[in-house]
């Protein structure tokens, strides 16, 4: 019974998507707008692939992914560390949190000029912006997770003789894991969002660069393809992340 329900859902989903593609195709072909500016998917995709052969495409994709992974790790890592420490040691939290909360509303992209001044026009400045995008959500969620731990769990562990760092690492952090996982997912998504703009900083490779460059050349099909590619990559990597999280947490945490 459940299987047929899921199948039906999948089919409805596929139908909806197909519907949109068909509408796109129809409207584009109708000639209401110039096909150079609004190509139908049947034309746009093959043309894009023609202009940017798969080998070259892969270079761009991998360049972007590399940047995001670097930025994400450098941002999420400290995010977790600082989040755990601030949530656990109240004095630290009191000192650190206001500073972070005040800096947080500044959009990562607004940092670009300073990033360029500090790091130049190369890779580090782009990675820096992604670091910012990843750090804040990871910190906020980790902090929230640490602060929201059921005190009963800690008390129980204490009755078993745990204290200090042991208590932190073996009880507190695992208890906060679901929130940390949420933070990681959000951070990853935001990193992707920032990527395009980050790659405006004189990049020579990357999916964002691809789109920008295509605009200068007037290759709309490549732009559209690039946009879809970024979206698809985001979706796939997020699904992988969600899968990994589910594997780790799924058994004991009802999401």
């Amino acid at each position: 019974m459940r299987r047929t329900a899921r199948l039906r859902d999948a089919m409805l989903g596929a139908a909806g998507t197909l519907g949109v593609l068909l509408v796109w195709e129809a409207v584009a072909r109708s000639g209401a707008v110039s096909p150079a500016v609004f190509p139908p998917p049947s034309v746009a995709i093959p043309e894009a692939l023609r202009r940017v052969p798969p080998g070259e495409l892969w270079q761009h994709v991998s360049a972007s992914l590399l940047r995001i992974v670097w930025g994400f790790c450098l941002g999420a890592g400290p995010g977790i560390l600082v989040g755990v420490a601030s949530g656990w040691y109240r004095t630290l939290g009191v000192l650190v949190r206001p500073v972070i909360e005040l800096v947080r509303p500044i959009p990562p992209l607004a940092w670009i000029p300073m990033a360029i001044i500090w790091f130049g026009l190369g890779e580090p400045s782009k990675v820096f912006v992604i670091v910012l995008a990843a750090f804040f959500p990871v910190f906020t969620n980790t902090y929230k997770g640490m602060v929201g731990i059921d005190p009963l769990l800690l008390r129980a562990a204490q009755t078993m003789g745990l204290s200090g760092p042991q208590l932190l690492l073996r009880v507190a952090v695992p208890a906060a894991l679901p929130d940390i996982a949420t933070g990681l997912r959000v951070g990853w998504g935001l990193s992707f969002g920032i990527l395009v703009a980050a790659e405006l900083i004189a990049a020579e490779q990357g999916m964002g660069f691809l789109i920008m460059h295509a605009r200068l050349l007037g290759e709309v099909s490549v732009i559209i393809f690039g946009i879809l590619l970024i979206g698809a990559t985001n979706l796939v990597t997020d699904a992988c992340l969600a899968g990994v999280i589910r594997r780790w947490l799924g058994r004991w945490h009802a999401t």
Partner: protein
Amino acid sequence: MRPSGKTSAEGGARAGGPSRTGSRWLGVAFLGGLVLLWQLGSLAGLLKPFYFPPPSRLATAFWELAREGFPEGIRIGTHMAVTLGRIAEGYLLALGVAIPLGILIGWVPVLDRLTLPLITFARSVATLSLLPLVIVWFGAGELSKVLLIAYGCFWVMLTNVIASVKYIDPLLIRAARTLETDGLGIFRRVVLPAALPRMFAGARVALGVGFMVIVGAEMIGTIRGLGALIMEARTYYRSDISVVGMVVIGVLGFTISAGLERLERLLLPWNRGLESVRR
């Protein structure tokens, strides 16, 4: 086991800390201390003003922006108004469509299933990646920026509105049915109020997205607006102005978000972390 004097969630196992008011003062003091260090570092020559404009420089730069304006005499007030105006237009446009549409989709399961993969994909499309496309289609003017912001805000709000309706505790609806209410009555008096908390949450996140997008959107084709200001300043090597721009955006974002929270608490006094939602 030594008994703990504190029974609140904050006490007990964790390393003890200062009291509530003590915390606040300590936090402020620390912040003040950092700013002071920053200023002193600059005076001592350790922090070059170009790389780390000291607070004194920022203050004068702000004053300059307020009086003479930059670039070409555009004052800080104008920049703020332009940026906020663009965000507001895109934001309201997005919410205006997302709320009714989201309620509809959330309410009718078939629609939800039809649109789910689409919405999931559209959300994954990085809003700023649309910048080049939007410029090709609509030029580098105001419309493009507003549309971009609208796009970003729309999908976030939509997903939240759908969820707000979809995950209403069915028990509340059952209870309403036993109380001689059905159809429209249930929709108006149970579904909508129950969905409000999550819709507010979505509105706040969407606003955050708007602020994120605007900076990117203002990088091209304009010199008015805080994002443009920050970028333009760089070409003139005025890092102090860039930082002032950053701070102003940050403060604006913070204030508006806090305002929304205040509004929510006013309108939804019954919602103290409690949700009439199943998950």
